[in-house]
């Protein structure tokens, strides 16, 4: 009973966090007016479980002390890490970590695609965009989180995909980030993933 309660709280938080990461990786936050960052921070401060680990606290601390300069250079650093045109410093593709050559659209990407197909989903402009971009994986997770009976698929997808590579991804963010916001989101990711892992290891229901 107690477990379920905690889990229910987590459930809302999870939804919030996954949504937040989806917006982040889709680049939506690049357009966020500076005044809105305060509101976002307030929302984050209300996520209790996030406050329960060091990484979450560090992330919030970073965002509390945001400078104007950090806001100005956020986009450049975001692009350096995830978009290019330079060599991606923290590639957002699963295959960059799982494929021997780091090449996208290989067997690793197809495995992700199969998950989507299984759920009747398909990436828009399939073939032009690798299916294993973190943005699509997050969107897929959100889709699963939205239905009560997708627990097993979600757990499987997390174990077989996102959780398999996200640590390496985050390590690269920490190594290469030159901006408070990208670093804060790196910490957030790290902190959140720790929570996800303990949730899965705690073998409770995921949805």
């Amino acid at each position, binding site marked *: 009973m107690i477990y379920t309660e905690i889990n229910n709280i987590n459930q809302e938080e999870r939804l919030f966090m996954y949504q937040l990461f989806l917006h982040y990786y889709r*680049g939506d936050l690049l357009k966020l007016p500076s005044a809105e960052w305060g509101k976002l921070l307030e929302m984050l401060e209300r996520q209790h479980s996030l406050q329960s680990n060091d990484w979450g606290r560090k992330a919030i601390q970073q965002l509390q002390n945001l400078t104007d300069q950090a806001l100005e*250079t956020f*986009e*450049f650093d975001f*692009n*350096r890490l995830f*978009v*290019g*045109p*330079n*060599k*991606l410093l923290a*590639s957002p*593709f699963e*295959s*960059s970590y799982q494929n021997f*050559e*780091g*090449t*996208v*659209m*290989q067997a690793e*990407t*197809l495995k992700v*695609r*199969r998950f989507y*197909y299984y759920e009747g989903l398909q990436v828009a*402009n*399939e*073939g*032009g*965009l*690798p299916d294993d971009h973190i943005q699509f994986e997050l969107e897929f997770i959100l889709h699963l989180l939205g239905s009560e009976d997708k627990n097993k698929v979600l757990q499987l997808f997390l174990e077989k995909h996102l959780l398999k590579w996200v640590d390496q991804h985050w390590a690269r963010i920490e190594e290469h980030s030159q901006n408070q916001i990208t670093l804060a989101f790196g910490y957030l990711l790290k902190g959140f993933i720790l929570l996800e892992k303990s949730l899965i290891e705690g073998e409770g229901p995921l949805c």
Partner: protein
Amino acid sequence: MLDQTYSITRHVCPRNCYSSCSMLGYTKNRRLHKVTGDPKHGYTKGLLCAKGYNYINNVYHPDRVKYPMRQYPRGSGQWQRISWSEAIDIIAEKIIELYHRYDSHLSLGLNKYSGNMGVLHHAMEGFFNGLGRTSRAVGNPCWAPGMDAIYYDYGEHQTSDMEDILHAETIILWGINPVWTSIHAMNYIYEAQKQGAKVITIDPVYTETAKKSDTFIQIKPGSDGALALAVAKYILEHNLYDAEFLEAHTNGWDELQEYIQPLSMEEALQQCGQTIEAIQFLAERLGRSKPVYIWLGFGMQRHQNGGQNIRAVNALAAITGNIGHKGSGVQFGQRTTWKFTYNILNYLPTDKKKANGVRPLDFNNFANDLQKQQDPPVKFLWITCRNLLTQSANIQQLKKALQSLELIVTVEHFLTETAQYSDIVLPATTQFEEWDLVASYWHHWISINQPAIPPYYESKSELEIARMLSKRLNEYEEDFSAFPSDLTDEEFIEQEFTDEFYQSLQIECWRELLKGPRRVNVPKTAWEALEFKTPSGKIELFSQQAREIQLSPFGMALLDNRRSENYPFTLLLNHEPFRINSQFQNLPSYKKINKEPCIYIHPSLAKEKGIRASSLIRVFNKNGEIVIRARYSEDVNHHTLVIHPNHPLINKLLTFTPADMGEFVTGGKGNALNDLQVNIAKL
């Protein structure tokens, strides 16, 4: 649903490479699954090189440019994603503004080279032509001297079908290393060898090809002409020449005899570093073991006497009657199969007040010309199919010249050093995402390239970009640009063919190329008819045309002694098998093969200089200095050093040293890149 069947599409490798391989793309579920060679290609016969088989890793590289990106300030690494329409707006506005500022389009510059050899990749040149008179990089860093030399001697550029080599008794691979750079040729060479032909490699380096040859002659770099002269003298003195052939098909034999007789054999031997026995051997093979098939590489003409080197070998072949007969000939490069209409280049402004044509900026001396041309200065530069900042000499001057530009746009697959130095980088499609047509400068096959997969992220073809720009300009101002924005890719392809071209391909419609590449119906043996488009109609051993532009009328000459005491070693820049210039650099598995740049040095020289194996050394000349790891190699001689130029390091030592020829055919002199004299010291 996952589709279980592949669709198979035809592609061409558009790189600057002898083979221009036709390839098959296997696509399933909008994903390119694998790439193989096309067995219907009569020259490459279904095989690719390692680079070709690796295309998947190139196409699906995570670091490909994905969106139009803008950088401010230039070189800062602060990139912003912009939409295509923003990018096109910025560019179009600049073009219009500059036109009004200078009342001409000369402030617009284009620098395009061979990163993609496809016909539709002429789109940007076509677009520039459609504006009026603009500035353009003109010339060629690769084969300019040789092309002129061939032109002076034969009047045209032809090669034989590679099958022709099977008729040869003797094969001379002169400064070419096909095992590394033209792998498909090796099957033909091996086959000829099996049938009894003897293969002789002449090269300053004991190459992989040399190792597979029957004889290797290690020549001093750049002394090919001296070697040819020594052999010609021997041939003359021992009556090994083909008098009948000379009489019927050459012009200037008497003059040439007169010219070479007094030249010193000893000096020639000393210059090329050979013994008289080697000369005798070559002379006898040329005179007695005919037909002799000679293949000339591109390195030997990248010297100050590069064109002369080629003319010298041409003369040698002519003297011994080794031209026009099956299994003979001097093979260098050809243009006879490039029978496209090039309509894509010919949409000129209808407004008669607008001047046409180009203001040339020397390709090999680009930095200098950018600075020199000030009326008006170039303010806008479009770079495509080209990595200007790694593949040029005088990099510091070039960077300085680029500073005065107001807008630099680069079209690319990856963020090259050049793209890093641009204001806008536009993502380009690969040959798996676009239409194109490709011919070869070596063999005689034409292949079509069709799209297999959707463009990666927001990338677009050059042609699409040209159309978009033209459309936007005409929205601003009617008839501003004559480049058609309403023709489809396929319509552009259609326009590249004439009935005559169809006939020589034995097809009725270009779509038949989708069933397989076609051979252009040119003679299988170059100069088979022994008719030459020279002023005399014969092979010109004495060229009045050359003389008229202050060149020696003869191909053969001794070298000026130009070895400097301060820089006594020649540094050669030889290609290696896994890259083409700056292309294919960023594939992880290739990076493992060559972890870091190195210089090959003979152990005896290393010992003399106190250089230990695998230690870092200084390489320097009057232009600059580099630090690079030394590797011992007995494949080079004591005075020769080799670097595989798959990194921009070497540019610090390079400047523009004009070769003797190149202007006639390519519009500018070649760069004598292999006349790089340096010194070395241990660190």
